């Protein structure tokens, strides 16, 4: 009878060992990882009116119009480049949009190829 018990014990130990072998696993830890992509929206894609205000052959300010209400609260930055020098200024867009006159920090001379750049930042 003791022989039978030994046989059964050996069989059980063998089977148990196999199960333990299958259950073995590696230890895994991880750091954090967070990522996101978001569109940078435009407050308007419509055309804006741009008018240079002149004084004695120089550009002293720029009036930007047709600004929609969606641009309200944004900061309008304007730069006039006459090919020799450039002058910039900025102003806040009213909450309801409309038009904004930006006074330039200096008054570049009017030329035949003035370039006016503008950007709306925020809100």
């Amino acid at each position, binding site marked *: 009878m003791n022989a039978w018990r030994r046989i059964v014990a050996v069989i059980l130990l063998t089977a148990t060992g196999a199960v333990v072998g299958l259950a073995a696993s590696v230890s895994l830890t991880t750091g954090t990882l*967070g*990522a*996101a992509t978001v*569109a*940078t929206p435009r407050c308007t894609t419509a055309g804006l009116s741009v008018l240079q205000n002149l004084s004695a052959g120089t550009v002293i300010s720029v009036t930007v119009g047709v600004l929609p209400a969606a641009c309200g609260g944004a900061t309008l930055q304007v730069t006039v480049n006459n090919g020799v020098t*450039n002058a910039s200024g900025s102003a806040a867009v009213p909450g309801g949009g409309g038009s904004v006159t930006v006074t330039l920090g200096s008054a570049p001379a009017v030329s035949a190829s003035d370039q006016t750049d503008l*950007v709306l930042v925020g809100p």
Partner: protein
Amino acid sequence: MKRIVGAVLAGLMTFGLVLGMAASLNLTSDSLGSQTTVVAACQAAALNATYTSSYTAAAPGPGYTVGTVTITGLAATCYSKPYKVTLATAAGASLGEATGTTPSSGTTIVVTFSPVVAATSVTAISVVISG
């Protein structure tokens, strides 16, 4: 008693045959271990990006460019971790990437792009924080 001995012998013979068949293959194995764990973000609260633009006469200008992006809303759980910020076009093309380590205090990350990026082209921003 003879019946019992006979049954035991028959069983051992059968068991022995099975073992004999199983022993006919020579099989080895490389190790294989697996585990699964969750990859979590360091914070769930939203971050907000704002842009600082300036006029640049040289390339990529003449025109307005973005040289600094300020990201607010950083939580303490994301302190002192590596980050990457990418400005991209609508088609997903990268305009510039800035890397650094988040601060160890405060709620703001100031990201500087060098060279600066044309503001007209920026239509998407991607942020990843790891570690």
